[in-house]
């Protein structure tokens, strides 16, 4: 259908652009917070059915995740790797590429960081060892994304299937590396050598919060600005929004595709490195926190906006940290967090649909 908007004169453009933007922001907040509240109620009903008082559960989660000093520090620490993953996914999703291989890229990054940093820290200054280990992690994660990237760029093979498979492969390979190559001979537990606490990424001030949080925040803000304010970001968004227009405009779409995968995987791999170098210190065999799958929905909830993603990553971390405490204290396993996230996602998606329909009806 043709949409004829010929009534408006060409002069006097953009008078109300700021106003429009503000009301859009308010609506967006309303369509975000409303569904979250509804989700809390729905999930609360589930708790009731299980014989748990939802108010005391939520109260406990907030208490442990935000209000208590130690809990808040744990929450902020947990955010560090998640922020990197979120920034990597924002790059990919905005460019229209479904990188569902985050878990493999993350774990490989983590294992390489753990394996490379302990020998390097013997001979190099600590900061250099940490930097070199991070770079190695990035390289390996980028390498791991290369095959899906090339297949998509030059053969048109759907990246959902290839990144998923590379993720399975990456998780297995990470385990193989831990068990066969980088095993710490000093312990009976199958794990890599452990980076001494004092050699890890510095903590912030007098807290236990890792400085990885700062790097993560920087990463996601830089990615956000890159995607929205630079020529390169515009090119990537163009490839995502309309690949044929990108070809028409003379962009090298295959090359940009490879660049997107490299950036995305590199950031996720760096997330793995930061998790190890700042928080965990080593990688145990069969360790797979599966952050990737949890962060994908978060990025969607944030509508691929970096700042909104920070807020949602914080929320996710609160739920996880608080949920883990609640599991010990209230006997509600932290699986409940998964259910809550899922309900939030579903209600948000439905809210967006209703909002969209409502808009259409109003225009007609």
């Amino acid at each position, binding site marked *: *259908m043709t*949409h004829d908007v010929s009534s408006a004169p060409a002069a006097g*453009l953009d008078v109300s652009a700021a106003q429009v933007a503000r009301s859009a922001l308010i609506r967006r907040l309303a369509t975000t917070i409303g569904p979250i509240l509804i989700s809390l109620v729905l999930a609360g009903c589930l708790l009731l059915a299980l014989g748990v008082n939802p108010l005391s559960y939520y109260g406990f989660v907030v208490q442990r995740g935000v209000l208590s000093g130690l809990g808040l520090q744990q929450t902020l620490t947990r955010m560090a790797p998640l922020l990197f993953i979120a920034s990597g996914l924002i790059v990919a999703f905005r460019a229209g590429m479904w990188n569902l291989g985050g878990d493999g890229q993350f774990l490989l990054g983590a294992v390489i960081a753990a394996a490379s940093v302990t020998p390097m820290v013997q001979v190099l200054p600590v900061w250099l060892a940490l930097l070199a280990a991070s770079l190695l992690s990035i390289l390996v994660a980028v390498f791991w994304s290369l095959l899906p990237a090339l297949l998509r760029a030059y053969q048109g093979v759907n990246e959902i299937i290839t990144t998923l498979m590379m993720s399975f492969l990456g998780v297995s390979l990470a385990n193989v590396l831990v068990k066969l190559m980088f095993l710490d001979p000093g312990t009976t537990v199958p794990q890599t050598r452990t980076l001494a606490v004092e050699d890890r990424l510095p903590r912030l001030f007098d807290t236990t919060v890792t400085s990885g949080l700062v790097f993560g925040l920087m990463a996601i803000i830089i990615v956000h600005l890159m995607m929205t304010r630079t020529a390169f970001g515009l090119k990537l968004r*163009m490839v995502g929004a*309309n690949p044929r227009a990108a070809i028409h405009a003379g962009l090298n779409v295959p090359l940009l595709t490879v660049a997107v995968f490299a950036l995305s995987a590199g950031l996720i791999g760096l997330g793995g490195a930061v998790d190890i170098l700042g928080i965990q210190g080593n990688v145990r065999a069969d360790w797979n926190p599966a952050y990737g799958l949890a962060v994908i929905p978060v990025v969607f909830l944030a509508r691929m906006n970096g700042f909104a993603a920070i807020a949602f990553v914080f929320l996710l971390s609160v739920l996880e940290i608080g949920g883990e405490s609640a599991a010990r204290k209230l006997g509600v396993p932290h699986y409940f967090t998964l259910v809550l996230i899922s309900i939030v996602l579903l209600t948000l998606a439905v809210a967006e649909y209703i909002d969209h329909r409502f808009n259409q009806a109003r225009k007609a």
Partner: protein
Amino acid sequence: MGTQAPTPIVTLDAVTKRFPGIIANDKVDLEIRAGEVHVLLGENGAGKSTLIGMLSGLQQPDDGRILIDGVATSIRSPSHALSLGIGTVFQHNMLVPTLTVGENLALGGRWWQRPKLAEIAERVAAVAGPLGIKINLDARVSELSLGEQQQVEIVRALLRDSRLLILDEATSMLTPHGVTELGALMRRLVERGFAVVFITHKLSEAADFGDRVSVLKLGRKVGEITPERLRAIDRDALVAEIVGMMFGRQAGEEAVSIPPRADNDERLLEVSGLEIAPSGDTPGLHGISFDIGHGEILGVAGIDGNGQKQLAEALAGQRATAGGRIRLGQQALDGLTVGARRKHGLRYLTDDRLGEGTVGAFPVSINFFLKQIGEPPFWRSGIERSGEIVARGGDLVRQYDVRTPSLATPIGRLSGGNIQKVLIARELADGARAVIFNKPTYGLDLANSLATRQRIRDIASEGMAVLLISTDLEELLSMCHRIAVISEGRLVGIVDNTPGAGERVGRLMIGLAA
């Protein structure tokens, strides 16, 4: 016929349909009778497609009634339309490319049954034979030409016991010969008692094929010519009357106007021996050679899908070539990227405005500069300069009369004519020397078409070389200096635009010597 005619098969009674921002159909009355070819004539955007949408069950009217055999009926869905005897052949074909013709015809049967291919073959023979249609039921649809696909769709509508056959812009994909054949087919159909609704924006087809002509304009029905009246007057008078309804007075006057050229015959754009290997569903190009001088408009005539798009894309650098040379002035363009060719002054205005010309979700302002991403002054060190973009965008909006609520409006919300203005502004900006126009007025209303054509004449007058690809012969005849004819990936001839050129081009298009 006439006053004591039986109840019409379909009657539209003050039917109104609104879409966001526009009234697509405003109180339209229409009667569709058996034994008549009822032509619905109107420019793009006149509301023809919406009318068909409602008759075929894809959309519901907001006001007014549709009567089937005199009974008010709401056509709820496409299957309901079929069961009422209304079959539609859509402008964009509605066949599944991965299935065979027979399987496509079988679609719609009861789900648990085996597709009755043998029975279908029999019925196709019974229906298609008398109408002179031959189709191969075992061929995969993706292997058929567009004309063949259209015949399959007509047969499909007839297999469903349709009493009313709606043909939406059915001639846009056909050769002149194919158009004549379709006209004869419609004649045979109405002789057998079918009703045919034939939708077109081409006046001559309305005059040639119609028993009754209704003219739509901006959503309203502005006139109807009854069969009695149609029989009473001759063709010229009929055309004059229709023109009067469509455009008021001034519209028929778009005179042929070929911009004058200086006697400077220096070549500007030279193409020799261009080759492209055919791939999948697209034709290749073979030995394409031509040149265009300063200020010259070279038309490319031909049926859609004969390699026009491939030619344009190869020149613009979007498509790899297997051989041949392209020069613009002193500069060889072979092997250069799209961006480099653009910098040398070669511009390509695509026919697919939303599909590849623009990014619908991006604001109008950004869409002006999609081919300059990263270049100063709009980007500096890779950082976007919103101020520069908005300022220059505002200038272009005014200069090219783009009607948009704001620069921040996503371009996908604009009308086709305004999107086209954005594209023209983009391609003509900063140092254009040779411009390829691919179907520049396709889908535009009359005012925008005229403005676009004048814009093309203007840039030729300024000394640029223009390659004008169009499937509208009248358009080419109205402004080109020479017209090349493309057929199956070859230029089969180049004709000077002198009196009688139209006929010679027509002969070339159907494979005869000019």
